[in-house]
């Protein structure tokens, strides 16, 4: 019951923000959306988020990490080239903002350190 309740509340929060967003967009684009549309969209986004989080977890596990990094997120766009381009652009911009050089293909920027720390913990226990 507590679990279901929590899920309900999270969905409500999502519903609210999606609703706000859709309303904003509709005003801008001279459109209208039924409340049912917003509800259905909320459900869709909710499912998409839970799928995404599963995927990300699996990707990082597959790489032997416990911490999800940007590479895992980039894998989300593996089936959609346009999406990959956009995300890569965003990623490069983020890096540029942090003062790191944008590495176009393989990002070899020391993130393994975090991963190896995770591994190290696991090994230390055994």
């Amino acid at each position: 019951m507590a679990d279901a309740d929590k899920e309900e509340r999270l969905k409500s929060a999502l519903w609210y923000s999606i609703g706000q967003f859709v309303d904003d967009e509709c005003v801008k684009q001279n459109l209208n959306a039924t409340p049912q549309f917003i509800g259905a969209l909320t459900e869709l986004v909710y499912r998409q988020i839970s799928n995404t989080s599963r995927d990300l977890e699996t990707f990082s596990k597959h790489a032997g990490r416990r911490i999800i990094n940007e590479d895992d997120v980039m894998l989300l766009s593996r089936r959609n080239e346009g999406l990959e381009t956009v995300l890569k652009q965003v990623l490069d911009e983020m890096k540029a903002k942090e003062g790191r050089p944008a590495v176009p293909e393989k990002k070899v920027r020391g993130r393994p350190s975090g991963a190896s720390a995770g591994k190290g913990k696991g090994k230390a226990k055994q």
Partner: protein
Amino acid sequence: MPATKDTGPAKRGRPPAFKPPRPVKSAGQKAAAAPKRASAAASRPASAAKKAAPSASKRAPMTTLISSESEAEDDLSDANADEEMEDISEDDDRATSTEATRDPIPANLLIRLLYEGFEDQNTQIQKGAMELVGHYMNIFVREAIARARFERRGAGKGGISDGFLQVEDLEKLAPQLVLDF
């Protein structure tokens, strides 16, 4: 607390509907769609209306919290959100300048939802990766709306078209959208 206990079983009865937040949203904002919902509400006993009130008031603090968060992060996301806008809103030029002002899902909520989805408690996510996921979901939602609008336009040529995005539009686009993302 009793309010949620009451709404729970009532919802169990029907298919996996998205009932809960409706009172909060609909009462204030969607006067136009009122007739449909009014008929739906009428089928329920009068006590249902009573139930809606407390749950709405209970949710109020939660929602206000979120709205303040999303406003706070507007400033942060402006710069990054700019170029993906152009891809999506091809045919509406006035949208491009203002569209970047808001994220559909506040960052804190998204983090929370992601962590709910993790099976392993120890899984964590980097800050940069989180930001990227935010953009990903941003694109997802915008794409859904853009495609729904496209569907609506196509449907409008056949007969009545009132520019209302319907669930059926979403039903048509959902399979391809999910395949694309």
